[in-house]
């Protein structure tokens, strides 16, 4: 029942998105312009500072994620579908997981575009350690999206919801961003500092467990009137 509900919610989001690709395309282009503007800020005499690539990558993910979260739940609010979802006799955590999976799909697609872009622009040898990079990106995105989905869902009915999401989300996800950036930076060292990267991956896994558990626990009371 739980898994079926979650997958149904995911399928619904996919079906809506596949009609116009609105959220996906705008998020992708936003991420690209994010990387561009940070590049212009940090590149001097044709070179970027050493760890810039890792930082810029994760900032782009964070900002694109905030935008994607806002847009996805704005769509829910507009169609009043969230209320309908909550009225359905489905376990609330399953609805949360369904929305989370949708956001994750969106963010992973964005990362599939930005990571090669950042590697290209900053001569970052990301793909030498693909497995570690994959672990860092997936765990980091899960942690960020877990808290983001909870906050975006709970802010749907609030006033000034667009500006409140970053204000509330960024402080709480600071550990995830730090771990992601430091892990990615460790991978960019020559030679790549694998023990440090593994440590940060372990930290990310730990944060993910804590954040997903807290979010699952808090989703139901936050969504009830």
């Amino acid at each position, binding site marked *: 029942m739980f898994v079926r509900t979650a997958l149904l919610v995911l399928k619904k989001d996919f079906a809506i998105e596949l009609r116009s690709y609105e959220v996906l395309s705008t998020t992708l282009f936003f991420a690209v312009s994010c990387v561009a503007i940070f590049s212009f800020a940090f590149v001097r005499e044709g070179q970027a500072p050493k760890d810039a690539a890792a930082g810029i990558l994760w900032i782009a993910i964070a900002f694109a994620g905030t935008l994607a979260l806002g847009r996805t739940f704005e769509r829910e609010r507009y169609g009043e579908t969230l209320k309908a979802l909550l009225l359905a006799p489905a376990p609330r955590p399953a609805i949360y997981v369904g929305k989370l999976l949708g956001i994750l799909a969106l963010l992973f697609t964005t990362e599939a575009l930005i990571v090669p872009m950042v590697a290209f622009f900053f001569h970052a040898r990301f793909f030498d350690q693909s497995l570690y990079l994959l672990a860092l990106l997936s765990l980091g995105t899960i942690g960020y999206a877990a808290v983001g989905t909870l906050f975006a869902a709970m802010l749907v009915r609030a006033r000034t919801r667009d500006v409140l999401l970053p204000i509330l989300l960024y402080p709480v996800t600071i550990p995830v961003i730090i771990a992601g950036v430091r892990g990615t930076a460790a991978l960019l060292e020559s030679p790549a500092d694998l*023990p440090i990267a593994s440590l940060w991956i*372990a*930290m990310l*896994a*730990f944060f993910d*467990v804590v954040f997903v*558990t807290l979010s*699952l626990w808090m989703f139901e009371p936050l969504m009830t009137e």
Partner: protein
Amino acid sequence: MLRRLSIGITTLMIVTAPTLALALQPPSAAQEGFRPLSELPPGQQVPAAPLLIGSYAFFLVLMMFYLWTIWRRIGRVEKELHDLVRRQAAVKR
């Protein structure tokens, strides 16, 4: 069931986290070129008294300011309460 499982996993993670974190021990920086602070001329030392006094003064100012904001907010709410009660009493008559 799911809740108990997630609580168990979280507890396990919290318990094993220190061990994981202890694995990180970056090498300490070299200690050449180190001169103790007492050997530096007074012009390069930072005076302690302004920092100390500034710290306690900041606490005093902050606490006074915060208590004043509470006082002001309580005053405003009480005034509004009295006005409302008076208006309701006037309407009843």
